[in-house]
């Protein structure tokens, strides 16, 4: 998701092609080709320019609505909905079985269509297999020298990542076991102060009440695609179970 203003001019994007199964966008104003996943201009008058990323989450609708009851939601195009052409609820599973085109440079550490949660901090990037987080949440880890935490929501599918430091102090987190009061969502507790935190990374009780963790962008992607754009990525290893 990208801001569309470049040099004070608002660009309007269309799909214009595919580059290794990732879309190319073309802007109407200059005709430049942009790689959708990176926001980088590949060819054309704005070649080399980088769109500014818009921070966003991927959440289940229930969690989003609980957190943002005043928000608005993109509506289906009625013509297309009437023709029943929108993706079915299980389409992600079907895409997961689609074939993958790989160049000579194949990284076999994971199967190509493994769903990973990609996190980038500074120069370092790390891929967390989604099923690792579904087995163990939160994941408390480091990316390079930065302490991070990945959490899955009470639906076991929504994911957020945070820098787990407050005032330069590194915090260890645990999920509260007596959990998810139906309305309030899951709760975490930090070992250092015993404060209670919610899924938005806000401390809602305890000594740190009112503080907020810095959110990190999580890109949910297939391993093969993440690897193309992050060739130096490391992989989180859940270790022996």
């Amino acid at each position, binding site marked *: 998701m990208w*801001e*569309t203003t470049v040099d004070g001019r608002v660009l309007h994007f269309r799909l*214009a*092609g595919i580059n290794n199964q990732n879309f190319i966008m073309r802007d109407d104003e200059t005709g430049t080709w942009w790689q959708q996943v990176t926001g980088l201009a590949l060819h054309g008058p704005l070649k080399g320019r980088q769109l500014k990323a818009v921070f966003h989450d991927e959440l289940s609708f229930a969690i989003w*609505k609980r957190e*943002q009851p005043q928000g608005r939601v993109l509506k289906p195009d009625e013509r297309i909905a009437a023709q029943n052409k*929108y*993706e079915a609820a299980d389409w992600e599973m079907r895409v997961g079985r689609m074939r993958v*085109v790989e160049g000579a440079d194949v990284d076999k550490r994971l199967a190509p269509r493994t769903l990973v949660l990609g996190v980038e901090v500074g120069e370092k990037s790390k891929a967390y297999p989604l099923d690792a987080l579904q087995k163990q949440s939160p994941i408390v880890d480091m990316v390079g020298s930065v302490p991070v935490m990945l959490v899955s929501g009470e639906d076991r599918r929504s994911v957020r990542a945070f820098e787990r430091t407050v005032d330069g102090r590194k915090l260890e987190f645990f999920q509260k076991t007596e959990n998810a009061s139906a309305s309030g969502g899951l709760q975490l507790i930090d070992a250092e102060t015993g404060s209670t935190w919610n899924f938005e990374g806000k401390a809602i009780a305890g000594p740190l009440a009112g503080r907020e963790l810095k959110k990190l962008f999580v890109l949910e992607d297939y391993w093969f695609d993440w690897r193309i754009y992050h060739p130096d990525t490391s992989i989180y290893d859940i270790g022996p179970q």
Partner: protein
Amino acid sequence: MPNILTRLSEWTNARRKLVWLMLFVLVVAVVAIVLTPVFLIMPFKAQTPRIMEVSYLMRRWSPLLTIIASLLILTLTIGLWMAGRWWSRIVLAILLLPVLGAAWLARQNHFEWMFNPLPNAAYAKAAEVTFVNNDDRVMAVRIGGESVAYPIRLMGYHHLVGDTVGGVPIVATY
């Protein structure tokens, strides 16, 4: 005009052959410049940076080049038509079809036929939504106090949706 026609009727066989050859080369070139990028950047194929650059250049210039080539082809066709018999006129007419097709296709975005844009996106209030299930996933943005959710099942169909959130123009992509 009359003296052009006389000149055309005076074309020698060798000259006529040369014009036919030029015509064929131009027709092939026009079709190639339009169809090559279609094949190079097909989904489910591997692309290299070089392939992307060549495709970009062909897409960038084909609208103009197909017009110039079409005018040249038309000129040659008129010449051969005047000097030709009925069977060569049939061949000339058939050759014009791929040329016109290529000039037209150079102005189309076939990716928007395959992947359906949503130019006039509409929105509903969170509390009034009936078309999204609780466990459907959404891409969620919050800028300047304004919150928007883009259901992934819709984004997986449209892929690009332009919007302004909290006063900031953005494009939601999937």
